[in-house]
């Protein structure tokens, strides 16, 4: 295994990315990292290397402190809720504008991406276009901000719950934590609740005797559940929930990345897809 420097594979000026690597990276041995960075043209000289390193280490230290003192997950919960609210708001406005164009012109317009919508609006022309163009521009800006927010959420998820994030992906990890309320709350849930978390409506309907037990809540969005054949989804969701529960507990009680978990989940899933059904 070759050792990778804290600045490898990222833009050294990107303080957030560099701080994640300082926090989560490792190497079997130290090396002449500074000389390598200068040699590879990553920085121009020792002074700028020092500045980049210092900025990144200060950010990493601060994030580690947050994570250790338990305020990082509260920030994550609010960030992901805001992200989802922003996504919903953008979608609603997009749909509204598409309908507006459809109604005002003779063309059928669906709420595609913002670029298509902009083109449709331009081809519709007239007062409709002049009236709505600015709003679409604003929506475009908002969409860019949302991307920014999403990458912050993704990094924060890795900070708060590296193991859960590795297995579930950053957004699902964040949403699970938000649905439970905090990392600690999520860590205390039995795996059967993890499995249906986010499907509360369906769960309560079931408890009232009005519906069958829901097989999956938020974790239904995980690729392994979504791609499983219908009859297997319940089993896959159960297996996934079990692993996510273990991952969450390691995140809460130990806080360190456990590299074997990912392979274990993969094994379990192949075992299921290859195994006897029913």
């Amino acid at each position, binding site marked *: 295994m070759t*050792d*990778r*420097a*804290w600045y490898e594979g990222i833009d050294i000026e990107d303080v957030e990315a560099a701080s994640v*690597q*300082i926090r989560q*990276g*490792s*190497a*079997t*041995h*130290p*090396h*002449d*990292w*500074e000389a390598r960075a200068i040699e590879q043209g990553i920085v121009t000289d020792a002074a700028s290397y*020092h500045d980049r*390193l*210092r900025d990144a*280490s*200060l950010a*990493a*230290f*601060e994030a*580690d*402190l947050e994570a*250790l*003192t338990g305020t990082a997950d509260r920030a994550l919960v609010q960030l992901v809720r805001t992200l989802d609210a922003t996504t919903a708001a953008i979608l609603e406005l997009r749909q509204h504008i598409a309908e507006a164009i459809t109604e005002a012109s003779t063309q059928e317009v669906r709420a595609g991406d913002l670029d298509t919508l902009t083109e449709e609006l331009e081809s519709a022309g007239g007062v409709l276009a002049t009236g709505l163009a600015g709003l679409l521009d604003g929506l475009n800006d908002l969409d860019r901000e949302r991307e920014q927010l999403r990458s912050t959420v993704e990094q924060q998820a890795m900070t708060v719950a590296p193991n859960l994030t590795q297995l579930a992906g950053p957004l699902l990890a964040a949403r699970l934590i938000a649905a439970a309320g905090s990392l600690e709350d999520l860590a205390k849930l039995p795996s059967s609740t993890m499995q249906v978390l986010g499907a509360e409506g369906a769960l309560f309907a079931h408890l009232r005797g009005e519906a069958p037990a829901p097989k999956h809540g938020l974790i239904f969005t995980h690729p392994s559940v979504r791609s499983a054949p219908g009859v297997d989804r319940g089993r896959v969701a159960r297996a996934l929930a079990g692993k996510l529960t273990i991952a969450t507990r390691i995140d809460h009680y130990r806080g360190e990345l456990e590299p074997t978990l990912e392979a274990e989940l993969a094994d379990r899933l192949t075992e299921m897809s290859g195994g006897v059904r029913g």
Partner: protein
Amino acid sequence: MTLPAGIEEVTIGGETRLATEGPPVYGEPTVDGWRVWGAGRSKLAAMIEVGLPVQFDAATMALYLGAGAGTTVSHLADALDRVYAVEFAPRPGRRLLTVAKEREAIIPLLKDARRPETYSHVVESDCGLLVQDLATVDQARIAAAHRPFLADGATVAVSIKARSEDVTAEVSSVFETALEVLDETYDVVEHARLEPYHDDHLGIVARVD
């Protein structure tokens, strides 16, 4: 005794004290911009006061294990261009962060000194000075494990706190064991008890050869 680079003696209240040049951090007295570096507050200062040959020049990069709230680190950072400061506890860490923000030389790392692989991707392999002040078990072994971070000829300044190793054992036998362990990896140059500044602490200076 020749003092290491960036460290001088100042006279204050008729007494000669060690000092470094920089903005004050924790309410220490200053003389013309030189901050008194009290041996009672710092194991490294005590090592210099009792005459141990702690040597480094201005171009040295230092690795400091057990940075605490940054008291000693702040003085080292006055003298040197880069100090990697490793500390794993959040509470002193918060104060260390404040100190680090005010001193360009400090690279703070919230890491466990028993797991050097978690910062090997950040710290250089040719540091000229290792300072260790960890109140924990296995102090000598931890210092030995940091050999890969050090250049040939580097200075190792370790403070061993007897009570952290084994509260029931004889202090002198704890120190002997520590010296033996260190001598397997480094060349132990000199050692001395840090009284009257710190009770039951041994200061050890070793070299990488």
